[in-house]
């Protein structure tokens, strides 16, 4: 009933991190077989939508100390400094590799790679390919990966469970969407690279596939999730759709304006002069909300908004550096930024938290590695700096790939029959869902409830009370999600069952997020409590860990790895 296949390592996720891991593994040992499992064709992964750029030192006025400190400070001192140092050191090599593999980075006249300014970065260190960076990176990685015969792809396979036996992770159970059949894809080590979970929220830059599956898989396998309360709001999303207007719009010199036509960020003082707009994302998002609250926002069909003003850059500059922004604004909001303001409001963008990993991309479960947005290596701490995460996918994707190969080489085959019988149980569970007309909850209805609970409880500004409410409500939503009503009983390409599984993953994470947030009684980075408006290093300079129990997450803590950068007040 369950189809069994065996590889040496299994990678879940074909985005930036998953592909980089696959290539690193394929290069490390061409004789080993690598399974690359993804619920969409790899080039559809949401890395494709990243616009602005990827950070790594490139210029002579830059150095590791500067990039490192920018990142530590951006993280509000919650980043692990060993990880940050490793990241900063390896970033330039990773981006150069991508260049060697064909990524069309934008260039200076002398033929070197060009860099642009980004929020919270003290110099121009963001590599870019106009404003479609993720797209070009993902396609370059995917196309490069095609040359390796030992990467075996499982496209449109939805992983529903990690197979754990003898205390180590040895494969995954996956639903083949095309046939409805179940597979046990076994390997001696497993890498999670499934990306973020923005879809827990109603208004997000994330695509529909970003449902946090990998975090839920690890969580259900007993692995801790770390720092889940930290959710990045990007200051500039299009009202209605949530489509991102990249930070590069400000990096290239765009202004934010309120309904008084003021460049209000000048008064908030996150940067000087021309760089007023280039504060870190958490701060700029808060500034916009404060403008709204002071009555200086515009009123629109989808609520309040401010605007991005690019007009002074001129058509030529916009077309050369921000053509995608222009295209998106024209198509999705009917505005041509050459002549008009682009309406924006803060929008859920990125999960700083995720599966707890260390500097080796390893989790607490032997044989399980994680990289990319799904993981929390604590590079980003309480607030990620724009353009660090694409690079993170590469740096830690490569680390995960190499370490997973090494682990696999030292590990035995394991007990296949035990693994297969686990997969069979899982198949039965999923099969019971298919077309299950006895359930009482509508998928779309429950999703809306979860979305609005999260928006109310865990927004840009949070209150103890609203977070507590969210924690209770998400718990009940999680329980209700066990009782879904499905209509489609067909076998072939049944997307309803996929949505159901995704929803069940999201509700788990929503609860962890709300509970972790309610527990952190301070304001740090993206987590801003009105009741506790300051950072409290005395009581909260630690990572929140969440382990799964049936009654909800059990919280724990993990020390922050400090180094030569001492925590100080975060001012720009």
């Amino acid at each position: 009933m369950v189809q069994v296949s065996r590889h040496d390592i299994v990678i879940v996720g074909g985005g930036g991190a998953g592909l980089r891991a696959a290539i690193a593994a394929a290069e490390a040992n061409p004789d080993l077989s690598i399974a690359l499992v993804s619920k969409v064709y790899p080039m559809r992964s949401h890395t494709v939508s990243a616009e602005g750029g990827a950070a790594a030192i490139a210029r002579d006025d830059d150095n590791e100390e500067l990039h490192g400190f920018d990142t530590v400070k951006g993280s509000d001192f919650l980043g692990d400094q060993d990880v940050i140092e490793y990241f900063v050191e390896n970033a330039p090599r990773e981006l150069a590799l991508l260049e060697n593999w064909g990524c069309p980075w934008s260039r200076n006249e002398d033929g070197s790679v060009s860099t642009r300014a980004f929020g919270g970065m003290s110099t121009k260190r963001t590599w870019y390919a106009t404003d479609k960076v993720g797209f070009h990176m993902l396609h370059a990685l995917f196309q490069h990966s095609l040359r390796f015969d030992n990467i075996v792809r499982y496209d449109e396979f939805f992983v529903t469970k990690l197979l754990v036996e003898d205390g180590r992770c040895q494969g995954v159970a996956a639903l083949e969407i095309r046939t409805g059949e179940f597979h046990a894809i076994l390997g001696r080590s497993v890498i999670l690279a499934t990306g973020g979970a923005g879809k827990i929220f109603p208004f997000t830059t994330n695509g529909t596939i970003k449902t946090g599956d990998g975090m839920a898989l690890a969580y259900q396998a007993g692995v801790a999730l770390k720092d889940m309360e930290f959710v990045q709001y990007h200051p500039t999303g299009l009202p209605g759709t949530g489509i991102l207007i990249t930070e590069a719009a400000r990096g290239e010199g765009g202004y934010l304006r309120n309904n008084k036509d003021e460049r209000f960020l000048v008064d908030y003082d996150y940067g000087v002069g021309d760089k007023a707009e280039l504060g870190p994302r958490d701060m700029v998002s808060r500034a916009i909300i404060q403008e709204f609250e002071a009555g200086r926002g515009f009123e629109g069909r989808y609520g309040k908004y401010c605007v991005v003003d690019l007009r002074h850059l001129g058509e030529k500059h916009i077309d050369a550096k921000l053509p995608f922004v222009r295209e998106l604004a024209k198509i999705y909001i009917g505005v041509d930024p050459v002549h008009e303001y682009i309406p924006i409001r803060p929008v859920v963008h990125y999960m700083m938290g995720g599966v707890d990993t260390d500097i080796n991309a390893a989790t607490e479960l032997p044989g399980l590695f994680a990289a990319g947005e799904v993981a929390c290596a604590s590079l980003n701490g309480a607030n990620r700096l724009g353009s660090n995460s694409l690079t993170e996918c590469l740096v830690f994707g490569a680390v995960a790939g190499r370490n997973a190969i090494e682990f696999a080489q030292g590990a035995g085959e394991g007990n296949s029959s035990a693994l297969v019988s686990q997969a069979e149980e899982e198949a039965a569970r999923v099969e019971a869902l298919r077309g299950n007309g006895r359930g009482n909850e509508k998928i779309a209805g429950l999703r809306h409830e979860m979305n609005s609970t999260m928006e109310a409880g865990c927004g840009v500004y949070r209150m103890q009370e609203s977070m507590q409410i969210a924690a209770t409500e998400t718990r009940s939503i999680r329980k209700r999600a066990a009782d879904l009503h499905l209509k489609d009983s067909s076998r072939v390409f049944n997307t309803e069952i996929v949505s159901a599984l995704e929803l069940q993953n999201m509700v788990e994470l929503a609860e962890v997020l709300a509970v972790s947030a309610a527990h952190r009684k301070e304001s740090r980075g993206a987590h801003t409590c009105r009741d506790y408006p300051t950072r409290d290093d005395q009581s909260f300079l630690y990572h929140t860990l969440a382990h799964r129990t049936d009654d909800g997450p059990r919280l724990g803590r993990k020390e922050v790895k400090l180094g030569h950068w001492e925590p100080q007040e975060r001012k720009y």
Partner: protein
Amino acid sequence: MAESKKMLRVEISRFDPDRDEVPKTQEYEIPVQDDWKVLDAINYIKDEVDPSISHRWSCRMAVCGSCGMMLNGEPKLTCKTPLSDYDETIKIEPLANFPIVRDLVVDMDGFMDKFRKVKPWIVRAKARAEDMEDLNEKGTFSQSPDQLATFKQFSMCINCLLCYAACPVIANEPEFIGPAAIALGHRYNLDSRDEGQAERNSIFRGEGTVFSCSFANECSEVCPKNVDPAAAVNQAKLAAVVDWAKGLVLPREGA
């Protein structure tokens, strides 16, 4: 949503291989909002009316390439096409020229196979370690903005397959590798970092590649990203012929 309650008739092509012999059409009458894209209407139906519809989508910002379908017979990205382009009815079908897996989902495996045939990666003559001498001190190749501009347009393809659904040759000639894949091979041929032109040109002169294209230009007409695959395919055609003629005059090593 309250402000505009326009009703729209949506006809969706349905096919479940376990139940249906051939695709059939199902009609839905739904309220739509004036700023919706076609994808929003399909999602509305899936969420609120009939959850058994299957379709692919993800980014909803015209960059992941999953949501291509035939709208009133024309290949389009549904997340990019405004509903207001259609008056009272809209007919939604899976992409033409592809085998249909289910409802609005087509079988892409044939494309993925063709995609790989053109060697869409940087080919270098020397092994990587020896290649280092061509790199600058930062470890990157030098490439001027002009050299970049040579191929940039052809690197913008999102693999949405609209061009395949439009090309009249694809409809009739199964071997044809088709516009997007050839454009991709050509993109690497034009890249100043690549040294695989000879290999790819001989692929291009093989069966079902550039000479199958009869310059219908349909591919470029429907491309949502202005890749102009017709230009790429026909530039590749010319380049492959020139390369062939050169081969007549000066015999190639090894070939």
